[in-house]
């Protein structure tokens, strides 16, 4: 593969840029299908909870995360405390820190686009970014365009969901199951990739126990805290086991 520099890119002109746009669009088609649909469900769910399309747009524009936005609807409509919202956002979105970690060097070369890239990193664009075989400036342009397109799909879907949700002649009750379905799918994906199923099982056990003890209204936070604590201890124990092995 031929390495490309910024200067070469500029010389290649419009045709090259068009090709990159097309390529980025093709790469983003899977995201288009899932984002448009899921964010429409989000817009409808917000509408059902009494928040109009401009709230959906505002959240999609400023927060822009899949799973958390859905949980956020229930948090908002139940009037959850800022502490609960902050901790839920922190725990649910802390994975984003680990995504960005992969691209620290690449984003650093992107100049003005760096901030936008940081803000628009999602599970799906992360996967696409990882799968790109292109190099250099071509890769960076593709990453930027995929991020831009994906965010547009998400925002368009959220607004459409909010606006059309109001106009739909039939009752949309139950559309929020979409979120559960999405979580089940992500869970299966992660289960298949995982080396150990202990984290998933601990999460499940902690949540069920907390639900039964604390009740449906308040169990999310204790579940997340207990899960993180157990996993931290579990990691430490694995570490010390390995050290023991090395010392033996």
């Amino acid at each position: 593969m031929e390495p490309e520099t910024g200067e070469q890119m500029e010389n290649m002109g419009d045709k090259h840029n068009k090709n990159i746009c097309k390529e980025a669009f093709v790469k983003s088609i899977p995201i288009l299908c899932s984002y448009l649909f899921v964010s429409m469900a989000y817009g409808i769910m917000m509408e059902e909870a009494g928040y109009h399309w401009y709230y959906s747009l505002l959240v999609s524009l400023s927060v822009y995360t899949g799973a958390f936005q859905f949980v956020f609807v229930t948090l908002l409509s139940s009037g959850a405390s800022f502490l609960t919202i902050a901790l839920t956002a922190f725990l649910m979105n802390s994975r984003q820190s680990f995504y960005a970690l992969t691209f620290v060097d690449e984003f650093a070369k992107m100049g003005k686009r760096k901030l936008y890239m940081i803000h628009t990193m999602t599970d799906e664009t992360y996967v696409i970014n990882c799968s790109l075989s292109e190099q250099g400036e071509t890769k960076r342009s593709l990453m930027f365009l995929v991020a831009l397109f994906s965010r547009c799909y998400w925002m368009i879907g959220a607004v459409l969901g909010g606006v059309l949700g109001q106009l739909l002649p039939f009752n949309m009750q139950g559309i929020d199951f979409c979120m559960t379905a999405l979580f089940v799918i992500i869970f299966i994906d992660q289960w298949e990739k995982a080396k150990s199923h202990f984290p998933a099982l601990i999460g499940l056990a902690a949540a069920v126990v907390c639900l039964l003890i604390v009740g449906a209204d308040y169990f999310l936070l204790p579940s997340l805290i207990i899960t993180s604590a157990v996993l931290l201890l579990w990691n430490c124990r694995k570490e010390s086991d390995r050290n023991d092995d090395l010392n033996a």
Partner: protein
Amino acid sequence: MMISMHNMGSIILTAMTSVTGAGNHTRYVLLAILLAALITFVLRALPFLIFHGEHKMANFLVKLGAVLPSAIMAVLIVYCLKGTVTDWKTNALPQILAVLTVGISYKWKHNTLISIVAGTALYMILIRML
């Protein structure tokens, strides 16, 4: 970026002026959105804030981050299905059947869209029938 900022400003204004009656809840929602957006952005930017130089991320954090996603997803599934405990009769059966539909169809076809549509459609039908 500029366009985004401008849009955000006008949306906040619209949101504030159109719901002046329910001022308290509007303020709560806007603050909550701001809070969530800030936390999410800081989390995304964290590696850039910490690791632009020689610094390396604490090992235990890297490892926690690697195992956290699947655990959190499990917690979230229980969160979505919390209604099954409080309302066994009307909630549990449709949810369990729909979750099974999503799981089995996804294992079979590995198509996100099909599984979401199938599960959600079944759920929406079941809650109207049962």
